[in-house]
């Protein structure tokens, strides 16, 4: 059934870099300094300023960013972290790395497929140490309500901002509402570099903790020693190698200059896509037009109105050269999670997972290609 071993005509994402990006990476490589150093520091500062956060600490991936954010929030063995199940597994897995238990809460609806504050409130126990909110597809979750809730219970709010760099809520950038925000620079993301991530925070202690643990909890780094600042180091805790390297920081720094204009383009395309998709019978298009201005418009998710057709519709689109993905299968339904956390029921999440398809979307997507996707979807759903 699958058109094996061939790239789709309309891929899910299509990354195009610019000559100035190549130049930035080439210069870094030619400098011969590849490990955590001045370019990473410069990127961190630029990104922190962009967000309006006190600190930004670049790490190797969003998974690493979540792990360090949870640890910084004091999450440890016996604790619980409330997370949505309608997200990439790392949101929950990072809690397991800390020895804690992820507790899955419902999403509000298929139209607003993000953490339902009421269900979060119902799932808070004496063991709850943190809540992680995911700003799905680049749209703001109910972060203001969740912040109030977490403050009232004195638990940490962590934001999984993997989808949502530069998105905002009430004029405040996402990632800066909670104790820490975890960003992703994975290759299909809005600001992508290959593998990479970042933790932002306004809390000096969280920042120092994350900085220490990303590089083996060593009291000085290679760059410090190279630049003559220090001579030796101590190891003060169990740390990790969650460092980003300089070529990736250079690429991020170069791409950051265009982030706002690319997001603007994504918004224009999203409005047009939404208009086209509103004409396709048998689908739900999550979110409202009014949410687009605050979103960074990462992806275009749709939900099939009818349950049980996801695989068939995906295959039909693939036959027409259109790649789709599922953002996301429910975490608690994966084998590894069913074994560890059986008997979890989240009907809204599960229905969303069974009916969601993510459509091709990238800043240089043409009107004709958008038309083609909408037409194919109408055809496939109609059959």
């Amino acid at each position: 059934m699958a058109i094996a071993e061939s790239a789709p005509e309309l891929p899910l994402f299509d990354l195009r870099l610019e000559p100035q990006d190549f130049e930035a990476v080439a210069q870094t490589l030619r400098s011969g300094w590849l490990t955590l150093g001045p370019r990473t520091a410069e990127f961190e500062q630029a990104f922190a300023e962009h967000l309006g956060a006190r600190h930004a600490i670049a790490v190797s991936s969003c998974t690493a960013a979540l792990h360090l954010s949870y640890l910084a929030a004091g999450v440890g063995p016996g604790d619980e972290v409330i997370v949505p199940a309608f997200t990439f597994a790392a949101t929950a897995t990072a809690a397991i790395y800390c020895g804690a238990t992820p507790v899955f809460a419902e999403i509000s609806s298929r139209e607003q497929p993000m953490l339902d504050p009421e269900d979060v409130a119902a799932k808070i126990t004496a063991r709850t140490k943190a809540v992680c909110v995911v700003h799905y597809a680049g749209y703001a979750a109910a972060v203001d309500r969740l912040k109030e809730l977490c403050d009232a219970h004195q638990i940490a709010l962590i934001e999984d901002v993997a989808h949502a760099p530069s998105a905002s809520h009430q004029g405040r950038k996402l990632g800066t509402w909670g104790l820490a925000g975890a960003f992703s620079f994975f290759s299909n993301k809005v600001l992508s570099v290959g593998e990479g991530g970042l933790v932002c925070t306004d809390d000096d202690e969280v920042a120092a903790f994350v900085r220490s643990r990303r590089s083996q909890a060593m009291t000085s780094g290679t760059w410090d020693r190279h630049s003559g600042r220090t001579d030796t180091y101590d190891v003060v805790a169990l740390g990790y190698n969650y460092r980003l390297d300089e070529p990736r920081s250079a690429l991020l720094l170069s791409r950051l200059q265009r982030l706002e204009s690319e997001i603007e383009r994504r918004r224009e395309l999203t409005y047009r896509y939404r208009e086209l998709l509103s004409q396709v019978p048998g689908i739900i298009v999550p979110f409202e037009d009014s949410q687009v201005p605050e979103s960074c418009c990462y992806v275009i998710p749709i939900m099939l109105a009818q349950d049980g057709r996801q695989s068939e519709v995906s295959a039909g689109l693939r036959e027409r050269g259109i790649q789709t993905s599922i953002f996301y299968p429910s975490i608690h339904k994966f084998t590894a999670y069913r074994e560890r956390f059986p008997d979890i029921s989240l009907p809204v999440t599960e229905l969303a997972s069974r009916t969601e398809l993510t459509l091709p979307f990238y800043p240089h997507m043409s009107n004709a290609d958008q038309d083609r996707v909408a037409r194919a979807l109408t055809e496939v759903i109609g059959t």
Partner: protein
Amino acid sequence: MSDWRMPLTDIKVPEQDVEAVLDCLRSGWLTMGPRTQAFEAALAEFVGTPHAVAVSSGTAALHLACLAAGIGEGDEVIVPALTFVASASAARYVGAQPVLCDVLGPHDFNIDVQDVERRITPRTRAVVAVHFCGYPAQALALRELCDRHNLILIEDCAQAIGAVVDENGRQVGTVGELGAFSFFSKKQLCVGEGGMVSSADPELAGKVRQLRSHAMTSGTWDRHRGHDPAYDIVDIGFNFRLDEPRAALGLSRLPRLQQDIAQRRALVRAYRERLAGTPGIEVPWSDLAVERSSHFAFPVLLPDREARDRFRDDLKQAGVQSTWYPALHTFTDYRHLTPQGGLPGAEQASWRHCALPLSSSMQESDVDLVVEVVRNAVAQLA
């Protein structure tokens, strides 16, 4: 960028490497795909191992090696005290207890096989053999010991890609059940941050492959190439992936690795010749070990810690960067793991050594420069 007249390591990235990375960036495909596959195949051939799995760092490689080997809560892992901290962190990541053992001493910084044997208990599951500074540890003796006690042997090859363990040229990373390599920026083969796990066992390699990417049953590349978008997650995995630009860089540099190692060896021979007979300076390891080493670092020995520290100050004054490796049990977070009687070999080697500049881009004239500074510095000590 630095004011060092002679930095510890100096990485040169020639235009062909830059071009390989730019080619990859132009392709727009940055996550694990064809370049990573090609890099893995080339690494497997270079090392002489059936399976090579690229990962995000040497630390990640050790972590996944421990997980794949089934090491967990309640287990003990024997680790030499003179190594980079990740060799011991890996055991802790999986809930096991690192047990520090001694190294042979200032004449050979590598793991002491007899001391390993003394520290075996019913809870011991594995031994981490670190090939320190590029010099191969006694891997074959450790293999025999581990077989006798039914232990897993993990080779920490972070500093030793291309080093050989016997007269037939068998490389490090092929003796243990698993080998962990690093492509950190100071290493013989460097890409920035990166690593690799080697194994002859398809099941162990498969486990590492699975766990490096969240134990997902398909990857982004597979789905891009037309696989069904559905996937399962079958274990608690990690994001320890390498990406394509780094794989492209590694792939471009790998064909020069053997030549780079030969240059490093030539420089070490030159250092040793010139320093021979210099009062107050000794060099560890034998001439045979030098032939088998892949020469990550070139340490020399001073009479004691105080002399070493003064010596390093003098080198710094003269613009020559140097470094040294603390023993693990001297770190705040590892002090409680110091066994009764201490670890005298590791302590002596650690306090007395100083690693001098060494890079494949150095010339013999650079060695002459450093040696002159070294001679002056030792003369000051007397």
